[in-house]
């Protein structure tokens, strides 16, 4: 290999730190090395989301192939209610909005109160979503819509509650982050934690839009 391939080993540290690595993260110029490791964690989380997306994608595909498999049992029109599905959608969309506000507060505000306020609102919206979803499942069960009844219902209950489980997990994570925020203050790990949770939260919102359009709108049309 020729001489001009020799690479300067030193980074230009300040230049690196000022570059915005990804939107939303605001660790400040003092964190050049920190920034590197944080960036890795966020990138890793994106990659994880991609493989989670494959799981949902396959469950969607499976659901579509099972639409005909009601085996004489109740189908979408007997089981779904537009009103509550719509409420759930609105709750989740609103929670994405409030999480966005939290991210903005994280990036541009020094004081923590706004951040905590938006995070708590997000959490409440998430919990409200779960409440309505569980209520929906309850009604479905009452009307004979149980997974053991048919292949179609099995497919429904392998897809939609998995999203619900994800939301549950995200809510628990949010509570944990709020706890960390209270104990450790707004340090770098908490910041990246919020950033990664934001990715998950918006991701779940997108998956829900898929569920709402395909399962509920498609089923009731």
């Amino acid at each position, binding site marked *: *290999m020729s001489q001009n391939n020799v690479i300067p080993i030193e980074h230009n540290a300040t230049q690196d730190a000022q570059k915005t690595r990804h939107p939303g993260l605001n660790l400040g110029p003092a964190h050049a090395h920190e920034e590197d490791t944080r960036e890795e964690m966020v990138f*890793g989380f994106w*990659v994880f989301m991609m*493989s989670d997306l494959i799981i949902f994608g*396959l469950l969607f595909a*499976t659901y579509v192939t099972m639409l005909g498999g009601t085996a004489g049992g109740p189908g979408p029109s007997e089981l779904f209610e537009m009103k509550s599905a719509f409420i759930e959608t609105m709750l989740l969309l609103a929670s994405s909005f409030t999480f966005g506000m939290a991210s903005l507060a994280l990036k541009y505000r020094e004081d923590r109160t706004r951040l905590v306020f938006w995070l708590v609102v997000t959490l409440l919206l998430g919990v409200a979503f779960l409440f309505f979803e569980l209520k929906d499942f309850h009604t479905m069960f009452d009307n004979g819509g149980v997974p053991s009844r*048919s*292949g179609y219902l099995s497919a429904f209950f392998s897809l939609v509650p998995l999203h619900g489980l994800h939301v549950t997990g995200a809510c628990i994570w949010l509570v944990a982050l709020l706890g960390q925020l209270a104990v450790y203050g707004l340090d770098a790990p908490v910041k990246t934690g919020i950033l990664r949770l934001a990715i998950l939260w918006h991701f779940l919102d997108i998956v829900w839009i898929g569920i709402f359009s395909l399962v509920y709108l498609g089923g009731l049309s």
Partner: protein
Amino acid sequence: MSDAMSSIFGRLGWDALPFWSMLHDHSPMTLINGVIATGAAGMVVLGALAAIVLVSWLGKWKYLWSEWLTSPDHKKIGIMFIVIALVMLARAIIEAVFMRAQQAVGLDGGFLTAEHFGELFTTHGTIMVFFMAMPFLTGIINYVMPLQIGARDLSFPVLNQVSLGLTAAGAALVMISLVLAPFSTGGWTGYPPFTELSYNPGAGVDYWIWAVTLSTLSSTLTGINFAVTIFKKRAPGMKLFRMPLFTWTALCTAILMIFGMPPLTVATGLLALDRYLDFHMFTTDLGGNMMNYVNLFWAFGHPEVYILILPPFGIFSEVFATFSGKRIYGYKILVIATMCIAVLSFTVWLHHFFTMGQSAHINAAFGIATMLIGIPTGVKVYDWMLTMYRGRIRLSVPMVYAIGFIMLFVLGGMTGIILATPSVDYQIHNSLFLVAHFHNMLIPGLLFGMLSATNFWFPKAFGFRLEERWGYRAAFCWIIGFMLAFFPLYVLGLMGMPRRSVAYFEPQYLPWTIMAGIGALVILCALLCLLLQLWVSIRDRHANNVFVGDPLGWPDAGMVGLLTAAGIQLPGAARDLQH
């Protein structure tokens, strides 16, 4: 009392012990199978006890715990992955020998029950894929890749420990299943409806589901870890197109793991829902659709075979270059070919079930897509040959494996093209021809690759070389044993012998099954040679030390490439390797 017992043990009763049926039924068949199963269980228990006694006797518990089991170091985790792989390899080879023995005497009967034979091919296949091949290549990448790109560790060392733990737990389940309750008989593919509760109420399929799911999760996390490391932790100056080829194949494998493992997670997860919560995803009644499982499984399964073969491709690229004393021929082309293979591998899964009812047009499309993969693979073979052309070839042990690989792998590739023709596949689908084909890819491809890598990089890990005489013996036993054990299966397949047959009634099969049985014995010798090689090397380690007088330690191609990229001049012998 009995309430407490049943809440602890559930369905687990005395009949889960391998010798239980033998005590109640004294027919010769039950006795023979009972003795074999008990022997196997005894080996597991004895092996575990021996390990415990040995560690205690050496007084190494603390060392083992704090230096190895809880170490986040990528090198140690890599080595532990490989240890798991070697233990499981030994078990799976022994099982294979039993299967070949059964078919060698299987005209009108043989000595194994159908149930026992079913467990053997299921555990053999499951182990070889999930607990031999996957941990082996994960271990090698874990060890070598960070060194090649100049990273201090993987991006997520703790996640790496979690991956190791998940694989170890899965492997432990498969081992425990030898002692308690039989394993699944559903094959490594576990197709429903056979694996549904209604046909298989026992714990066997549950063992399989749990073991495979743990392994899959482990590999997904590993893939994320590798990919992030390669993208984000390269040393300054290590541009993507300066990376050693092995790292390139590691990257493509990691990407395949990220996208290829989730389908299996979905498949086994849904099967578990069917079994545990009375779902009807894949059942024969109430609107279940078992074809969904088949599609999901192979949406994982085909990328999986490239997960298995790409790292060996990278290893052989390094080995051919090193032991021909030349730079690798066509570096860029090899990288592009690797990426083409990775992408194409997601477009061909249907060739695993040409016979399961889709239209001829769909079959044709997938047949053509399958054959297309032959092109980038062929490109690689030419590149390797041109690397050797006019090189100063040294027939070291890794090189013997590599040359065995290139000749046998091309043959296996040809039979793959035959199988990819749907009209031909209708004739030989599910026959021993297929078994011969995939072993022809997996043994010369994956296994030779792993053994070659072990011989190649062992000195780097431990500071002394692996002994060569036993190394050559092992390599030649593998090559010859492979040919003896699997070429007859091509013939048997063309004669119509189905795979997974415990017995047959066709006397013409007999010479070929006997020949394959002899091949299996030669392979058993190869395993013994490997063990002896390890033993002799450790015994004579001081004589084979490689660190004498060389401050940089053992210079391998990747290390040298890295230092070159960083513009560092190497002293002594290592300079000769610098291009």
